[in-house]
Each structure stands twice: as C-alpha cells, then as structure tokens.
C-alpha cells in the first residue's frame, strides 16, 4: 500500500491559498477582519500617548501644585524646542554615541562571558558547584554599589563605567541561561543519544538550542539592567554620556534638557530591547508563528 494513500484525514496545517480570486475590496475587508485586534491596540496606544502628552502639557502650563510640584517642570513644547536644538548639537550626539558604545561593549562582554558560562555550569556539575556560590553572593549587589570599587579597579573612568554596565547585565544573562539549561527535556537528549550523538553534538544540537529562549529572556532583562547601571554610573562618575547629560542639565538649571535626557534614555532602552527581540526571532525561527 502506498504510504500517501493512508495520509491522515482532516485539514492539513499547510497553508492553502484561497481558491477564488478576491477583489481588492474583499481583500481589504478580510485584512481588516484578521487584524482587527492589532489595529484596535495600535489606535488605543496612540490615543493613550496623546492623552499623556496632553495631561503633561496641562499640568505644566498651569503650574499645578498638588503634593507634587509642577512649577519648574518643563512643558512638552519646551522639551521639543530643546530637542530641535540638541539634534544639531554635536555634543549631544556625542553623549548619546558614547552611552551606546559603553552599552555595546559592556553588554556584549556580559553576553560573551555569561552565556557560555551558564551553558557550562548547566552541563557540568563541578563547574556549577564551584561557580554558583560565588555568583549567588555577588548577584544581589546592585551594579551601582560597585562604583567605588570599579574606580579603584580600573585605571580609566571609561573602563570602570563599562565594567559597571557589564556587571549589571552579566547576572541576569547567567542566571537565565542556567535556568534554560535546567529545563532541557531529558527525552530530547535521549533521542539524540540513540541517533548516535556524542557529548559535543548533544551540547550543540540539543542543550544550546533548547536553552535559547531563556538565553534571550536573559539578554532582554540584561539589556534593561545594563541601561540602569550605565545611567547611574554616568551620573556619578561620568564626563560624557546621556546619564551625565541629564545630571548636568539639572546642575545647570536647564530643566527642559532633564526631560530630554530622560526621553532619550527611554528611547534608547526601547530601541535596544527591540533589537534583542529581533535578533531572537532571527535566531529562533521555530518560535515565530
């Protein structure tokens, strides 16, 4: 009996294009019906952002004092004005570029060290037994608390700031990688073994891809903490960087620049986590629907 003849009944999951050619109108309607939820979310999201700006505008224009004081808080228009001057200011762009460079170096180092270390600790008991206690003791120490130590350890200011950024993202990456390793389905390991896979192949073909979703969780969290640590370090010991820019604006009584710095930090943080998410989808095509 040919095997194809006994293929299962029922709808096959393969995508079959609709048989009847649809007109532009029906296509638009169908697209709308399929994406209704997403359109709605986008519309509400935009409305909510506009409402936020509006409330901010009203609170600052009328200098509301109600427990919190909006007397000196810059209005959205003032912030926009300082934004238009800032983007033509090479100094502002340099602050941003320097912060991005610190994030890139610190975070990349954390990923390059944290992921392999987590994989090795997850696979080899001895590595886990040796490294885990030290990691657990160091992990609760906030990266900012490392600032004085970092200044002592590293010859330049730049290096100590990168070190703080590294520390901030290192532990989330390590812990999540380790967690991913602990959740690898042992049956998949067995399946690989009875297909002839040896230790090295099992590591590459099973443990690593199985842990990838958790590794990317770690990278996303790590990226967030990297920014937190970077901004704090820049405010304390920097000479450049967007965190330093924000703090300097406060010292120089340029209130609009404070908000501008904050928004820039927010946008950069958002952008970098989107980048990580995009990388995740690229590396794990089986996860995207």
């Amino acid at each position: 009996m040919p095997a194809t003849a006994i293929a299962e009944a029922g709808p096959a999951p393969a995508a079959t294009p609709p048989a009847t050619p649809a007109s532009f109108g029906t296509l638009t309607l169908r697209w709308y019906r399929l994406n209704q939820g997403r359109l709605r979310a986008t519309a509400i999201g935009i409305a909510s952002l506009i409402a936020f700006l509006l409330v901010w505008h009203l609170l600052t224009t009328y200098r509301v004092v109600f427990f919190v004081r909006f007397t000196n808080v810059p209005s959205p228009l003032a912030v926009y004005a300082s934004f238009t001057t800032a983007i033509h200011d090479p100094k502002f762009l340099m602050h941003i570029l320097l912060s991005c460079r610190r994030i890139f170096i610190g975070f990349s180092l954390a990923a390059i060290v944290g992921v392999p270390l987590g994989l090795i600790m997850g696979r080899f008991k001895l590595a886990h037994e040796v490294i885990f206690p030290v990691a657990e003791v160091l992990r609760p120490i906030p990266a900012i608390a490392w600032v004085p130590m970092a200044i002592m350890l590293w010859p330049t200011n730049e290096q100590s700031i990168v070190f703080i950024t590294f520390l901030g993202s290192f532990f989330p990456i390590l812990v999540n990688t380790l967690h991913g390793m602990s959740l690898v389905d042992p049956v998949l390991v067995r399946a690989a073994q009875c297909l002839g896979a040896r230790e090295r192949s099992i590591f590459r073909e099973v443990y690593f891809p199985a842990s990838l979703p958790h590794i990317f969780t770690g990278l996303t969290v790590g990226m967030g903490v990297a920014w937190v640590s970077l901004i704090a370090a820049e405010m304390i010991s920097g000479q450049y960087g967007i965190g330093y820019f924000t703090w300097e604006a406060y010292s120089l009584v340029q209130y609009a620049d404070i908000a501008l710095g904050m928004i820039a930090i927010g946008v950069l943080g958002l952008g970098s986590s989107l980048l990580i998410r995009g990388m995740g989808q690229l590396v794990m095509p089986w996860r995207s629907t």
Partner: protein
Amino acid sequence: MSEVLANTSKGHIEVRNFSLAYETIEGPVQAVTDTQIHVKPGEFVSIVGPSGCGKSTLLNAVAGFLKPTTGIVTVDGDRVNGPSAERGMVFQQYSLFPWKTVRENVEFGLKMRGMPRSQRERAARTLLGLAGLEAFEKHYPEKLSGGMKQRVGIVRALATGPKVLLLDEPFGALDAQTRVIMQQILTNMWQRLKISVLFVTHDIDEAIFLSDRVYCMTARPGSIKAEIPIPLERPRQQAMMMSSEFLALRRGLMSLIREESLKAMGGEINDMGMQGLNIELHGHSLADVI
C-alpha cells in the same frame, strides 16, 4: 530504496537473567526481576502488561539508557553498554527537536554519522516520501498533528538504518483513528525494512494486530508471565480484528493482564469482589448499593 535503509537479517536481541532495581532511601526497589526475552532477526515482538510493571524499564535497558542490576542485554551477541544509533527508538512524547524542521529532524542521525549535507538531504526526502510527509519537510514539528509528528519520529529513528527499532507506547497519545493508520504505516515500514522490532504498549489489540509474538508481564516487580505467539497471517487487515482467532487471543491476553492489574492495585481487591461489585451495580447507582 536508498543505501541508508540497507539492512541484512540482523538484529537479534537477547535479554538474559535480567533484573533491574532502583536505589531509594528505603533501600532498593525491584522494578524488573528474572526476565528473559528475545527478538529474532526481523521479528515483531510486543511487550504488554499492567501500568508500572516495568515494560518501559525493560525497553530502556535494551536501548542502553538503563544498566541492568543483574543479567545481560545483547544485540547480535554484542553487549549493550549505552545508547547507540544501532538501536533506533521512538518515544511516546514524539521528542522531535522543535528547533529543527521535519527534514532536519530526519537528517539528524545521518548528520551525526558525518554524512555530507546533500547526500543526507536526499536520503531524508526519500524517507519522508515513504511516510507521505514530503510536503511537510520544511515545517517545524510544532505545526504538525500528533500522527504526523510520530511518523516523523519513526522515520527519524529508521533513517540511520538501525538493526532494531524500539518503540515505547508510540501511539499512546493519539486518537483511535490515527492510531489505526499509524499501525498500518509501521507494519508497512517493518515489512519493507525487515528490521527487528520491540514494541511496548498497554493496548492489547494493538499488540496482537502488530506482533509475531507478545510477551505479557506481571505486576511489579515485573517479569514475564506468558509468551504468546500470534499465528495470524500477514499482511494483516483491519477486518481480522473481528475474527474468532483474534478474539480468542484477545480474551486470553485480557484475562492474563486483568489478573496482574488487580494484583497491582492491591491484595484487598480480588477478582471475586470486583465481579460482585459489577453485579450489584447493574442498573443501580453506586449510592443505592452503598
């Protein structure tokens, strides 16, 4: 058929004086005791038994995942020391690699063996074609139905041309209709490949329908209670499941397993008691009886 599937009449499984105990805090717990089984080259043998009787334990020992406490497992005279591609395995939970496409899953064993990419792609396509899955080669397992997943599981296990195929309740998670189709597919592949099969199931019909011989195991600690040859002619058809010969075999196996299941459930529920309960319950609700 491609060279991947070349298989001479090999695959003689011998399990002798086998026992396996787990260490626990209260001391060793005997899972399987004093067991001898064998599978001749090209034979299809099933193991049935009440749940928890150690049939999967026995299969895992043949696969090389568990070491016997006493006794020996050999395939073609070579002692089993660990898992190997010589013994293909199919799991109840499918255990396909979610990060690999259907074809990459099938290719896995060949890749491990160092076969060049183009060659193993061709081999995988041929095999997927045999299982009616060529249209799904680029899909990820998540997108497949249970029956399709298990077809990939079987094809993947066969791709390296193993001497024996071990299946651990492979169709246990499938619905009744799919199960029947899968049994046909497995039978087809087995007949083409002339491979030895050791099949663990708790489904008596399935065991009789597929096998040349059925081992029935006792309740824990498991051992072989009976060995039943299945003389039904091949190729087997669904209609045979209604034949008197089939039904007689079924009755025999049923009563063997029933005895053991009752034993497994504890001494206080004996067969007579159960029958009494059935009669009393007839036409009444449980509350009426109590």
